[in-house]
């Protein structure tokens, strides 16, 4: 049963363990719980190997959870995958664009996987192509697109079904600053439309700028979940922080999420998880 009070995305005690090829078991996600409200953007922030992508694979229903549940628009993503994914738009970290189709066909075909009538999918594809600045590439093959344009197209594809929940796994990795800004604007629009956004990133600036709340993840554990300013306030206070930017040169700056992460996890965001 779903009710109108259900948050679009609800993650309840999510735990994910899997066997490693070299033997043994890894607990990649440990008892993680959070909600994402309508129009809200929650960031999953953590270093490489923190469990962000595994959590996202479970949240999108590609991996089954070892324990816990994930609900998208009130539907259990593993027990009712079709209903849940009907409301879900996903941009994975890996490039999964279908190189057998050009830019527009790619979007139209993806729309039909959501049972959109062909004509509706074509209209939406045309709108997205224009909005994402891909009009002059509308009928180009995927291989001819630069890395930045491919990433943009992958986010556009996640939006073709006009999902209630948008899950983006490091959508701006490898993008130049202009392309990153363009994508941020598009995500702002999606939020205005009421989409709940879960965004995984290891860019602190991106998380602070886009996210209403941030879930700090390390070694699969949720360290804390709060607004960026509250996280800073709670864990490092407001006093200026001294940082040696190059040998012998120390700058003073306002504390940020990097400092929070360093305090809670004992390592910086850019470092690999141990």
């Amino acid at each position, binding site marked *: 049963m779903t009710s109108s009070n259900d948050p679009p995305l609800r993650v309840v005690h999510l735990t*994910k363990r*899997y066997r490693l090829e070299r033997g043994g078991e890894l607990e990649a996600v440990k008892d993680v719980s959070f909600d994402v409200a309508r129009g809200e953007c929650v960031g999953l922030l953590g270093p490489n190997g923190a469990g962000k992508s*595994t959590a996202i*694979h479970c949240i*999108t229903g*590609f*991996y*089954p959870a070892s324990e816990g549940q994930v609900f998208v628009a009130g539907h259990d993503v593993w027990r009712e*995958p*079709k*209903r849940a*994914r*009907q409301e*879900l738009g*996903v941009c*994975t970290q*890996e*490039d*999964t*664009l*279908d*190189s*057998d*189709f050009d830019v527009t066909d790619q979007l139209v*075909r*993806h729309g*039909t*996987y*959501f*049972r959109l009538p062909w004509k509706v999918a074509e209209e939406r594809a045309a709108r997205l192509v224009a909005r994402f600045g891909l009009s002059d590439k509308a009928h180009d093959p995927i291989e001819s697109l630069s890395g930045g344009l491919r990433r943009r197209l992958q986010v556009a594809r996640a939006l073709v*079904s006009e999902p209630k929940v948008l899950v983006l796994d490091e959508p701006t990795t490898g993008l130049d600053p202009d392309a990153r800004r363009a994508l941020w604007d598009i995500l702002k629009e999606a939020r205005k439309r009421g989409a709940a956004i879960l965004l995984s990133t290891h860019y602190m600036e991106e998380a602070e700028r886009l996210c209403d709340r941030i879930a700090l993840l390390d070694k699969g554990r949720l360290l804390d979940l709060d607004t960026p300013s509250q996280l800073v306030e709670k864990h490092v206070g407001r006093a200026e922080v001294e940082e040696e930017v190059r040998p012998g040169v120390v700058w003073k700056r306002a504390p940020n999420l990097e400092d929070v992460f360093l305090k809670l996890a004992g390592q910086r965001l850019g470092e690999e998880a141990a």
Partner: protein
Amino acid sequence: MRLPDWAWGVACVWLRYFAVFRKSIVYYAVTTFMEPVLYLLSFGVGVASMIGKVETEGAVLSYRSFVFSGIVAQTLLFQGFYEGAFGAFVRMYYQRVFQAIATTPITLSEVLWGEIVWGATKATVAAEVVALLGVATGDFAPASPLLLLPVCFVSALLFSGLGLLSAAHAKNIEQLSYPQYLFVFPMFMFCGVFFPVDKLPHAFRVAAWVLPLTSVTSLVRTLTLGLPLRAGALPILAVWACGLVALSHRAMIRRLVK
């Protein structure tokens, strides 16, 4: 009419493959049909001119008719296996098509069924074209292509499943050569495509009948040339088809889903 969700999912995947096939129809026509046609010309015209007749299952046939029906079975083997193995590996490993579709309401299981059914469809069409050529040359009875259809499709599912199972276990595309050289080519050479299996020594004959292509070849000859039905052929085909399709589906899910 609204299709059930699972059937619609499988159909969507099939239609995606068909759209790609249609876009590159000339390429696919050449790569799908040239090989059986070359075998037909080489063995059906060249070798047949030296051999003339062949005796099998208590009947005497022209070698051309014999090898023509063998090529129908060989086409099912090669087309089913190559689409299931190399085609699926490229889509799964390089293009990540499976992963992209499986984030939509179409489940990974439906993607894999679509993959197997597509491979089977392509192989069936290729084999039916060879059968039609056999009718055109007077080697096969006119009703043969129609009668062959269910056997071709089940056999094609089997070989497509074999291909997908190979793709699920391959760490890289080169490793697909193992099943190709250790399983597909031996079947091609020793399972009755070019000579009757009953001419082999006993141990080889038993081994040949354990392999699925011998049953496929035997059933194709029954339906095209009117040779007697071998009792074991249908059960062997059914067991291999069910087993390989189920195993390939399971192996691919185990590979992709942690």
